[in-house]
């Protein structure tokens, strides 16, 4: 779709169709590692980085697959590419920036099963974005995920200090919070039209 401008794609992935709040992608890390702002920030950064790398890889792979007419292998290729991209990112950060590697630590392997990454690769294929559009889309989506997980972490840090009913502790409270946040993000829907 050529008519979508780059700024619209970016805004669309960042807030209007936020990956967590309106597409329900990446819920597992969103609920799992949003306990502290610090870790949430690292997780968001790592996810954005892997999204960027795998978006570029997916674009190249898809054009290769289309060339050979074997699109039915798309899913298997994508997931293999994402798994190796994560591995690659892990090795590079370990070599060049041990501090960053220690900070990201356990989060990197977890990203492989983050459905937001595969979702991004699939969406950019369905919408037939060109290279630059995919790049912008992946950065927008990554930042959108970071914003979502940071908001959640901030709220949960405050909640730790308040007293809530015993029954609603844990997942129930997190999901209700996510629902309210998602309600707020629905307000951005008008921006797109």
């Amino acid at each position: 779709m050529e008519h979508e401008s780059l700024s619209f794609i970016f805004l669309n992935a960042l807030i209007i169709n936020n990956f967590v709040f309106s597409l329900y992608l990446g819920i597992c890390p969103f609920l799992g590692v949003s306990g502290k702002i610090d870790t949430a920030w690292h997780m968001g950064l790592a996810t954005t980085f892997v999204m960027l790398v795998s978006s570029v890889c997916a674009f190249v792979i898809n054009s290769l697959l289309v060339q050979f007419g074997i699109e039915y292998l798309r899913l298997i290729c994508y997931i293999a590419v994402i798994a190796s991209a994560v591995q690659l990112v892990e090795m590079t950060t370990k070599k060049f920036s041990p501090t960053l590697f220690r900070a990201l630590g356990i989060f990197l392997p977890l990203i492989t099963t983050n459905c937001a990454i595969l979702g991004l690769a699939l969406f950019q294929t369905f919408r037939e974005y060109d290279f630059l559009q995919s790049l912008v889309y992946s950065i927008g989506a990554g930042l959108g995920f970071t914003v979502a997980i940071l908001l959640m972490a901030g709220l949960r840090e405050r909640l730790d200090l308040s007293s809530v009913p015993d029954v609603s502790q844990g997942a129930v409270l997190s999901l209700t919070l996510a629902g309210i946040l998602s309600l707020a993000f629905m307000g951005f829907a008008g921006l797109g039209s």
Partner: protein
Amino acid sequence: MQDFRHPTESAPVNMDTFLLGIWEENPVFVMLLGMCPVLAVTNSVLNAITMGLATTFVMLCSSALVSSLRHHIPKQVRIATYIVIIATFVTVVDYVIQAISLELYRSLGAFIQLIVVNCMILGRAESYASRHGVVSSMVNSLGVGVGFTIALLCLGSVRELLGNGSLLGFAIFGEGFQPWVIMILPPGGFFVLAGWLLLFSWMKQRDARRAQQEEVLHGA
């Protein structure tokens, strides 16, 4: 580490192997696994059923294959192998649904293909199928799949009933019903799931309190 409730390789396959996944280890309500499809495709009962069946099929087939290959897969590359096996079956399901109903395929969107990254399936392959026989693994996955489908149905029926006033497409309420549209939109998914979890955690607390009272009574 072996869980004491999980039978070892030689243990017989019984009803517990099947029921474990439905109630005690329900993937959605107890283990909180595979949340993304749970929230995303439960805006109608039909979508929920399709998603549940597709996931069950993928889990059943991949468990069978992983379990029959378990002595041949090298330890170091096992996760990659499992993912490729799962992705193969997901591709099959993807094309089958596309062939049966294009409309259904469109309404589920990318979520059929996203079954690949459902942590529940990989979890079954890693924690159960790689250590047990083919029959035992298949029965166990079937149980988990049914548990998953039931959970999807629980969410889907509430959301369709409140958000659209219908069940499986048939109108339940009269003409004057004002649908609660928010329930089929994204926030509704979070709220309904939170509601179900609240119900279960309340039930669990009530049971615990009763058991405690019983203990006190018997002790005295």
